[in-house]
Structure formats: structure tokens, C-alpha cells
């Protein structure tokens, strides 16, 4: 059993009589210590997936089905009381605008100590302070941040504070939802490097939800490519990005300009995202896929295993086949 295992996870948003199939039957395992990049364009369901794992979606606006097993416990059916034990202590999240969640009228240190003491009621003030300072050091922030107000910090520093907050109670699973997107390139690069160092030190497992493939290339061991709510391809980052098997992954990478190596043309993927309110019997990518057959439009493609831990939901992705140029 993997550390975190998604089984047939689906999320529908309910809009009156209509259902928007935001996430549709996503399954993949995450081993302890893995860093999984979940990439997709807008509307691919990547953020919904993260919110569902955190149990932030529910009646009456959303319906979550399937299983998400964290060491055998199903996150989706866990009682609210047990969930509280889990949040911050076992799993923590950092969002794109996490810094907006900081109170503007309290010092960073007080906010951090509060979070710590909620989960460690026995801890003294001094212990809470020491723990807060320790995590601030871990994300390369100076001690003075402890006595600063949020407005005294830059965006990059506040995002670092958010990451420090997420580490405060020693979680083993961290979900980053576009956590570095709003930052400048240099700051983003440094934070990504720090995160990877912390992961090795603390044995963290990370889900990285992002639209930016270069972030995944720089910081994740595995990649899950999503399109229109479904998982297209899952596998080790280096292999998937070097020789993608699913036509969507191939198209996405062709559309992505490369910074190094040979300069190649940029090629878009013609067409647009399907209407997620409709039931799509076949492959969701078929209308935009150059190889789509009648069968693709009629029947949902089965997952093909390319090698252990690398699979794609397309019959073309069979083992040993070279990616199409």
C-alpha cells in the first residue's frame, strides 16, 4: 500500500440541475518521500483534486466520490473530529495567496505560536516560540520576521512564512497549490531549491499543483498530467518529459518553449477544452487529438502501462513505442 493512494477520485460540482465533471476517475499512488507535480491547464481539475484531498469540498456544491487513502485511512470519509487531528499535523497546504490568510494586525510570531499551540496545548509559550523560530530558519528567514507584521514583508517572504506555517506541526504530506506562481523567477527558484532540501531532511511527501511544467521539471520526482478532469499520463518526471507517451502530453510539451538546447518551433494544440457539463463517453482529448479514431470517441480509453510506475490513458502509448515527432 502506497503512502497516499487515490482511487477513482471524482468530483462533480453541482449547479442546479447541472453537473460539472471537474475531476473524473483519477487514480495514482504516491510513495512516501515522493514529490508529485500535478500539471494541467486551466479547467483541468488540478486544484479541485487538491481541495478534495483536503476535504474542503462538499455538499451542497460538490460531490466527491472515490477513495483517497492516507496510509490506509480514507480522507474522504473520515469523521470531522479525526480530520482535525490530521490537518496541520499530518497534512498541510500552501496556496497561491496563502499570505493573504495572515492576519494584518498580529505579528508573524504570534500567529505561528497560535497555530502551534492549538495542536500542542501542553506546549509553553517559550516552546512555541522556539518551534516557530526553528521553522523560520528552515525556510531561510531571519529571526526578525518573528516580530514583524505581514505588511513589513515582501511577497516572497510572506510566502516563505506560509511554508513555515505549514511545516510547524511536522506534517508528512504537504500540498502546494500554485504556491510559487505569484513569485518572481529568482525567488521561486530559491524556494523550490529550499523545499527540496527540506524534503530530504524531514522526509516530506509533496503534491505540487501547478500549470508550469518547468516548475515540475525543476522540483518533482513524478508528474501527473491532467486534462479536462481526467488523468492523461502519470510517471517519473524525467521519463515523461523526455519521451511523453500520451498525445496530450506530447502536444503540451511541443507548445512549451525550451530554454536550453536546440531552438525548436512552438506548436499549439488546436481546439478548445470540452464542455465539462456534458457526459463524454470516449476520451476527453479525442476532439483535439490528431490520432483519434472512432473508437476513441465512443469508448473511454483504458490505461496502458508503459513500464512499472509509468502509465498513460491512451492505446497509442503502448510499451516500446517511440513518441511521435
Amino acid at each position, binding site marked *: 500500500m502506497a503512502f497516499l493512494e487515490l482511487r477513482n477520485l471524482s468530483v462533480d460540482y453541482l449547479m442546479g440541475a447541472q453537473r460539472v465533471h471537474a475531476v473524473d476517475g483519477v487514480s495514482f499512488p504516491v510513495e512516501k518521500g515522493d514529490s508529485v507535480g500535478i500539471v494541467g491547464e486551466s479547467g483541468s481539475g488540478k486544484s479541485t483534486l487538491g481541495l478534495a484531498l483536503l476535504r474542503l469540498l462538499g455538499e451542497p456544491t460538490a460531490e466527491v466520490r472515490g477513495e483517497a487513502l492516507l496510509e490506509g485511512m480514507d480522507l474522504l470519509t473520515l469523521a470531522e473530529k479525526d480530520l482535525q487531528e490530521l490537518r496541520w499535523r499530518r497534512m498541510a497546504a500552501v496556496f497561491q495567496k496563502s499570505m493573504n490568510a495572515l492576519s494584518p494586525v498580529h505579528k508573524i510570531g504570534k500567529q505561528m505560536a497560535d497555530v502551534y499551540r492549538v495542536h500542542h496545548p501542553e506546549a509553553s509559550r517559550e516552546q512555541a516560540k522556539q518551534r516557530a523560530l526553528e521553522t523560520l530558519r528552515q525556510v531561510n528567514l531571519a529571526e526578525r520576521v518573528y516580530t514583524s507584521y505581514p505588511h513589513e514583508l*515582501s511577497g516572497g517572504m510572506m510566502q516563505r512564512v506560509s511554508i513555515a506555517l505549514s511545516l510547524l506541526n511536522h506534517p508528512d504530506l504537504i500540498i502546494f497549490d500554485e504556491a510559487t506562481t505569484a513569485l518572481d523567477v529568482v525567488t521561486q527558484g530559491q524556494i523550490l531549491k529550499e523545499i527540496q532540501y527540506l524534503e530530504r531532511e524531514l522526509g516530506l511527501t509533496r503534491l505540487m499543483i501547478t500549470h508550469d511544467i518547468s*516548475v515540475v521539471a*525543476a522540483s518533482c520526482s513524478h508528474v501527473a498530467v491532467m486534462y479536462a478532469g481526467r488523468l492523461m499520463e502519470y510517471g517519473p518526471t524525467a521519463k515523461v518529459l523526455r519521451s511523453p507517451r500520451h498525445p496530450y502530453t506530447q502536444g503540451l510539451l511541443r*507548445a512549451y518553449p525550451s*530554454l*536550453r538546447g536546440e531552438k525548436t518551433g*512552438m506548436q499549439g494544440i488546436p481546439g478548445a477544452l470540452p464542455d465539462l457539463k456534458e457526459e463524454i463517453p470516449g476520451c476527453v482529448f479525442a476532439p483535439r487529438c490528431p490520432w483519434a479514431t472512432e473508437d476513441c470517441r465512443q469508448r473511454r480509453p483504458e490505461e496502458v502501462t508503459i513500464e512499472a510506475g509509468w502509465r498513460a490513458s491512451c492505446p497509442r502509448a503502448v510499451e516500446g513505442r517511440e513518441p511521435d515527432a
Partner: protein
Amino acid sequence: MPEYVMAAENLSRFYPQRSVKIGDAYPPVKAVDGVSFALKAGETLSIIGESGCGKSTLGRLLVQLETQDAGNLTLAGQDAVALHRKDPLAFKRAAQIVFQNPFDAFNPRFTILKSMLRPLKIHGIGRNDGERKELCRQALVSAGLTPPDDFLRRFPHELSGGQLQRISILRSMLLEPRFMVADEPVSMLDVSVRADVMNLLQRLTSQRHMALVFISHDLATTRYIADRIAVMYLGRFVEIGASEEVLNHPLHPYTRALLSACGSVDQESFDPIEIAGEPPVPIGAGPGCYFAPRCFEAGPECGENYPPLMELAPGHFVSCCHCAMKGVETP
């Protein structure tokens, strides 16, 4: 002397800060602080830098949405400020700008047709609406937006960001400008539709022999479209040169750090160069090199005078005293 479409000389834009007490003078925000470059027809210059480096202000100066506080700007050899004052329409027809968010660039109550006809009417292009509409149709077809009438009767919210951005570019191109600024035109679009916008921009630039300034924070996109790249830091160019030259042999420490911090799809390892601190604000920087307080190679000499841009390789200018002393190592 070659004919430059657009030439900037020591272009500067300072925003005064209002002081609370009378008589207290706060130093101004130096958004653009002495930028010089010249562009030939058909050439694309890309300006890259982080937020707050002044790249968008520079773009606005180039099309005179703002007026510079110092320096000269010439459009086809004529002074831009004078030209803009004397005949604003003629200036605007020659120098166009495309913005980041296409949904802000269209009136949501107008159909695409109405939005596209307006500039044509204002600039007196085409004899009647029928003729003008035909021009719009041709433009859409040339960009693969077919059937054109389908697009013309729609409203902006009925189109995707990528389609609307292409129409925004086409609308500007109908005026046949000699010079265009594209300010982050693809940064809010999805990856799979970016390519269409980039390809359109590139094709039109070469077909119409137009000069383009492409403002971006994304180095990989820049590489695809630009002939030359200028790296901006705190209102100044710190490095400018042919794009492959700058990306493959970056010289300025800031450019090197920036490049190392960019992940690339095909990279093997990721090891960004650490630079100290956060991007500072462009107030009261200097007198030495603006980057020196964060630079990993800075020495005492960096704090004395701002290093001028020096040509260290053919066409490759760098403003760094260390690079100048070391010279260029040929790889």
C-alpha cells in the same frame, strides 16, 4: 547611418513621491532610469526582468502613454514627443501597444466587429463600413480564425483568451504600425494556446517588416521570438545582446542568476544561483552598481560608480565592472 524605426536615448521616467510634511523631499521612484537602444525595421527586442524592474513603464514610454522625464525618443528619426503633440493620431497609428489581458482591451458591450471597426474609422482607413468589414474579415482569416463572420458577431466573453488576444493583435496590425510594444501578451494564456499567439506575432512582424518590443518575464518564450534580449534591473539595462548569445553565454551576475532560477522542461539538474535578499524598490539606488548589494561577486569597487554598458563581445553589452575586468572567456 542605418535607419532606426525607434531609438531611445537615456530614456528616464521618475515618479515623485508625495511627502507628508512640506519641504520634505522624498527621493523619486526611478522606474526607468536611463535606457538607450535602437531598433531596426523587422527586428524584435525582448525586455525581460522581474516585477518592479520598470519594463512595463518602459513599454508605455515607447508608445507615449507616458512622457519621459529625461532623454530622447525618436520614431523614424523624428522626435516622438513633438510628433505625438503635433499629430497624435499619426503617432498612434505608427506605434501600437498590445496588453497582457485581452479581456480588458475590448469593450465588453461591443461585438468584435464594432471593436475592430472603431480604430479603422478613427484613422480613416477604408472608404466605407463594407470595405472596413472586409479588412477585418481578411485579418481574421489570415490568423486562422474562420469563419470570420462567426467571430465578428460575437462578444468578447464568448471567446477564449487566446482567440481574443490574437484579435487584439490583428486589430492593432490593421493600422499597419511601424512599431509595436507587446507587454506580456501570453503570460495569462494557457500553454497550448500560447503558441498560436506567438506564431501570429512573429509572422506579422516579419511580413510587415515591423519593429517589435516584446516585454516578458519568461525567458523561454522570449528566446523563441526575440532577435535581441535586454535584461532590466531597477530601471536600467544590465545586459543586452543577441538572444542566443545572452541565453547561452550570460555575463552579468544578475542574468546568470535569473537563468539558473528558470526551470526548463528538458533540464537534467536544477541548481539556482543564490542571490541575497529580495528585489529592492527603485528608490535611492546607487551610487554604485544597483545590483551590488545582492551580487555574489560584488567587491568594494562596485559601490563606487555605476558601471557603463560595455561591449564585451560583438553586439553584446554588459554593465558590470567585474565582467569588464575579466573579459569574455570564449567557450
